[in-house]
């Protein structure tokens, strides 16, 4: 204990003694730490925005579906009434319910949309107009007409891309064709009541929303749905809520009645994009901290070379080589810990500064920029996370330790008799 205290006391006083050198290295760590926290927070904020945008455009942060539906997109792979009831009960469980913002039923199938001018493949989604308006961003993307309303029967909300391709106008008639629950090809006439432009070409060219009741009747599905889409308060809650849901639905999952999919499984492209972006961030930070680590190695090594006599003296007084190395590592660690704390605090301050209004990147891309099926908002609001702070702190301390290892090894190998030679 006394020796540990001695090491810490010596280390801190040595750092203060060589103040200019300490300050130079510390400033690099401070800037590095601040940039790391801020860029991670900004990255997380951006990703949260992409994920929420993706979730609201599609099937939520989590979705409950029949096992084959993801690949078939056919009505025969819909949820049974019992499966749907079980899922709705599971959603009431406290560990799930506290994160749930909204839940919407969807009857989604692949089909064809035709007008007198032509036909196009379509993603037809039967929705509850009120619930869907709270869930989806599509009602906000209205460019003409209105979104679906309760009481609508033969109404359709259509993407601008499809409108152009099929030469449709507001009020135009559109025939939707798909395979119904009996396996027959069945058509449904609807009228365009609203047009949206999401900014994502594949959505604007294929997506059609119709009332859920219309879809159920037309496709002979009754009150059945293909998907229960769930929007959570934040994407970080997804793994825990998914586990909790799967725990509550163990029997039905085992019986092959349903499965719980996260946005990562429903939107593999978006998942890959987030991971690639994260990886890019980590690589950039790795390079930055590699450079900073070289600076620390240089500073600590210079200090060891300059203080050979001091390390020799410590060993003459009874320090073991290992304790001598320990002193060097303690100095490196103390330097990185203090500057790392300051850097992280500075990074958190920057994050807080941009937390309210976000950072506007509209000079780089406009609000119609899309990426992996989502519209990327040019204003990114950084996202504060305790996990990121802890990760950064551990990373910084690791860098400090690793950067001190070589100088510590050199200090351990000092020839005491040589170091204590009097130089005239």
């Amino acid at each position, binding site marked *: 204990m006394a020796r540990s205290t001695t090491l810490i006391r010596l280390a801190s006083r040595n750092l203060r003694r060589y103040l200019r050198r300490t300050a130079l290295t510390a400033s690099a760590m401070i800037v590095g730490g601040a940039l790391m926290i801020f860029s991670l927070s900004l990255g997380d904020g951006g990703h949260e925005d992409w994920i929420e945008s993706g979730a609201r455009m599609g099937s939520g942060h989590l979705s409950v579906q029949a096992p084959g539906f993801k690949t078939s997109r056919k009505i025969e792979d819909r949820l049974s009434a019992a499966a749907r009831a079980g899922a709705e009960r599971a959603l009431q469980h406290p560990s799930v319910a506290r994160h749930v913002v909204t839940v919407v039923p969807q009857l989604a199938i692949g089909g064809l949309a035709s007008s007198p001018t032509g036909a196009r493949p379509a993603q037809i989604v039967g929705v509850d107009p009120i619930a869907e308006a709270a869930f989806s961003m599509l009602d906000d993307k209205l460019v003409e007409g209105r979104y679906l309303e309760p009481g609508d029967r033969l109404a359709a909300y259509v993407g601008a891309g499809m409108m152009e391709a099929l030469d449709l106008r507001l009020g135009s008639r559109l025939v939707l064709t798909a395979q119904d629950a009996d396996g027959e090809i069945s058509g449904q006439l609807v009228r365009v009541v609203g047009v949206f432009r999401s900014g994502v070409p594949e959505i604007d060219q294929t997506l059609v929303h119709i009332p859920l009741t219309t879809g159920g009747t037309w496709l002979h599905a009754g009150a059945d749905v293909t998907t229960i889409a769930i929007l959570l308060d934040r994407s970080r809650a997804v793994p825990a809520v998914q586990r909790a849901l799967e725990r509550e639905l163990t029997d039905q999952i085992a019986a092959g009645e349903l499965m719980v999919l996260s946005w990562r499984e429903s939107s593999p492209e978006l998942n890959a994009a987030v991971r690639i972006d994260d990886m890019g961030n980590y690589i950039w930070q790795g390079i930055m901290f590699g450079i900073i680590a070289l600076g620390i190695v240089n500073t600590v090594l210079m200090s060891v070379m300059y203080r050979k006599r001091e390390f020799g003296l410590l060993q003459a007084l009874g320090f*073991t080589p290992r304790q001598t190395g320990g002193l060097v590592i303690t100095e490196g660690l103390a330097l990185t810990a203090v500057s790392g704390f300051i850097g992280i605090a500075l990074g958190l301050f920057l994050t807080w500064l941009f937390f309210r209004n976000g950072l506007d990147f509209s000079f780089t891309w406009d609000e119609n920029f899309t990426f992996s099926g989502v519209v990327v908002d040019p204003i990114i609001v950084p996202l504060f996370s305790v996990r990121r702070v802890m990760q950064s702190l551990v990373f910084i301390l690791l860098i400090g330790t690793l950067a001190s290892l070589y100088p510590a090894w050199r200090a351990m190998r000092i020839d005491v008799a040589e170091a204590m030679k009097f130089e005239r």
Partner: protein
Amino acid sequence: MTVTTNEREMAAVRVEDAWKIFRQEAEEVQAVRGVELQIAPGEFTAMAGPSGSGKTTLLNLIGGLTRPTRGHIWVAGRDLTTMSNRELARLRLEELGFVFQAYNLLPVLTAAENAEFPLLLQGRNGGDRRARVHELFTRTGLTGLEDRRPGELSGGQQQRVAVIRAVVGEPALVLADEPTANLDSAASDQLLAMMEELNRELGTTFVFATHDPRVMERARRLVRLVDGAIASDEQR
């Protein structure tokens, strides 16, 4: 000559056929050549000789700061040549004290902190440490300088702090390498008087490497080294 285990254990220092050979590029330098030496507890011994005679190397061998090329060194009954680096560090901490020509106080510690440093490493509690340092500072006339950093002390004062540091842990043996070389006459006399007093009162064995006539005059045993070998060994 047959040496018994008992003799080795009784001696403060016993050097048996010690050699230290340095290699400088292709050339071999024999810094210490077959030295045989025994120092009894409580002796006040000076090893004298011109530069390059091997006195500092022999002192470093006795202090376990360097290992002999061949031969054996016994300190406080223990053979240094068979000890690990860790064991040597422990021996230096508990049985040895060092005084160097360049004072070698830790610049980041105060005079009192420097003096108590070996006790800190030994794990002695704060009260014991302070009492012991206070006693030695009083005895050596350094009272009032406890909180000064080495840079704020004169050469003589720094060397007295270094001597206190060497004896504070009550080692069996203090090794002093040219302790007066950087001091003026008055400071040298004061320092040597202090060491003599500590030797007399505490029974600490002192071994000097020196070419200072003042040290040689005060030593009760004078070992002269020439070209790494003992040329004479005179008891007074």
